[in-house]
Every structure is written in C-alpha cells, then in structure tokens.
C-alpha cells in the first residue's frame, strides 16, 4: 500500500472509529455493555 493511500486510510478509519464510539455511547450501547459485564456471564462460564 502506498504511503499516501495508507495515511488517508488511517485518518479516515480513525475519524470513523471515534465518531462510531461517540454515537454508540450516546445511544446507550455503553450502558448495555456495562450491564452485561458487571453480571456473571452464564454463557461464558458454562452454566447456560
């Protein structure tokens, strides 16, 4: 990948990532993650 193409891709992806994280957090996804992560994950430990 050429230098200029890579730099353009990096900037675009970085900007997209930050926007997506912000938008996702705003619409309540972060709260969903927290509510799942602070409870014992039954599927993860093999209870069901």
């Amino acid at each position, binding site marked *: 990948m050429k230098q200029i193409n890579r730099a353009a891709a990096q900037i675009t992806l*970085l900007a997209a990532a930050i926007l997506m994280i912000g938008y996702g957090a705003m619409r309540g996804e972060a709260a969903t993650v927290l509510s799942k992560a602070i409870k014992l994950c039954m599927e993860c430990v093999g209870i069901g």
Partner: protein
Amino acid sequence: MDKKKHKISQFLAHFRGWIQAVATILTNIHLPNFFKGEIYRGDAKTVCVPGLNCYSCPAATGACPIGAFQAVIGSSKFKFSYYITGFFILIGVLLGRFVCGFLCPFGWFQELLHKIPFKKFSTKKLKSLRYIKYGVLLIFVILLPLLVTNSLGMGNPFFCKYLCPQGVLEGAIPLSIANASIRAALGKLFTWKFGILITFVILSLMFYRPFCKWICPLGAIYALCNKVSFLQMKVDEDKCVSCGKCERACKMDVDVTKHPNHTECIRCGMCIKECPTEAIHYQYGFGTDKTNLKENKGE
C-alpha cells in the same frame, strides 16, 4: 534516528514476555476477587480491554470486546454496535495484531504452554486453517447472535457460549473453586467448554498459538487492520542479505521479507531478534519513512 528505531524494536522484541505479563495483570487488576469468588462490578467495565479476556474473570478490569459486541447486537434494543465496532477499528488502526503478540492474555497463556517440553509440530502445511477464524467471526459472533433470537428479540452470545475457552479458564474454574453455588450450577455446557479448553491446551503444547491462528475472531478483526495500522514492520532492502533466517524464525508462518505486514503477523519481533543485519524494525506513524523499504515498493 535509525539506530533509535532499532533499539526500540530490539527492546520490545527482547522484553515481550515481560510486557505480556504486565498487560495480563493490568487486564486483570482486581486480583483479590479470585479469593472472594465474585467479579468486579465497577464502571470501568463500560470500556473494553484490547485482548481476549473474559469479563466473568473475577479480576477482569474491563469488558471483553467480543463478548460486549455480542451482548449489544443480541440485545432487544440494538441490532448493530457502533460503540464496539468503533473500538475494533480504533485499536486495529492504532496497534493491529500487536495486541495479539503483546497484550492478549490468552495469547500469552498459549505461548507459555508452548514453552513446555513436548513434541513440536510446524503449522506451515496447515495454512488454510487460518481462514476458519473469519468464519467464526462471521457466524458465531455476528450472524447467530443477531438472527437466532427468542420471543423478546434477544440473541445468545454464541461464541462465548459454545466456543470460547477463555470463559472457562478465567471465569468458571476460579469462580467454581471459590464459590460453592457456582460449582453446583455447572453442567453439560461447562463440560463441553472445558473439553474445548483442554483441546487447546494440548494443541498449544504441540503447535504455536493454535487458537490465535485458527479460531480467534478478535485476531481476525485485528488481522484485517494490519496493513493500515500505524504500527508496521519494515524491512530495509539495503541491509537485507536474503538469508531467510527471519522466515524460519517466524512461528506465525509469515514470509517476512515478502509480506512484512501480513494478516498473520502478530508483531512478536522474533524476526527482529533473528536478523543478523538489523534489517527489520518496527515503525509507528502515518505512512512510511523514506528509506529503502520493502513496503514502499509494494507487496
């Protein structure tokens, strides 16, 4: 400047084991919870950790990104996770598969197992198995949690439930030792997942990082970002003597001189340590530098 780059590269490559140990402890900072038999329930779990680390580990500092992704798309409220997809892209662009080589606790666990004296086998003839992890990502992490739902519109985290050995290693085993009620609740699903863990423990004795190479959906995501990541491997053509030592040293079966930023490269630095002419080094930043590098001439 060139000397400084080589010093940093050599340092990272030589002290990788220690960096992995520190990363594992930071990812699981609440160590006293192992004795209490309960998990950490603080706000830090809103944020994902970069590696594969079960959030049901008593000591877990943050959320598992793969578990969190399935939790969001499997919830009744959302059918896509911008929050976690953004996180994947961010970490992928900033670090790529450096996470696998330096920061993932399960990757480190497999490496430690591989150090145990046992008959070792090459995975060079098993390269086609690499593609399984992309199927696991698509089917078990995205499609099944999204499409197989109950009457409330909620899906199961299929990867965590049926495939991930990290939940048993970090969650079920320590919790069941310290907590009698959890021990009593373990059934057939635990037996199945324990079988998967044992399988990968045995495979890790024989093969280098079998789970990372063939199954890990998180590795698959970071692999797709390797070519656009800020962190790149560079081979200086003026210094390279084509001795092939780097390729022989690479346990991820990458031909370093031809494809220094291959999707399978976990930036472990074994090629850096092995190179007799110091032709290989890490580079971090936008694009590449102006020296005579393999990457600049196209792959």
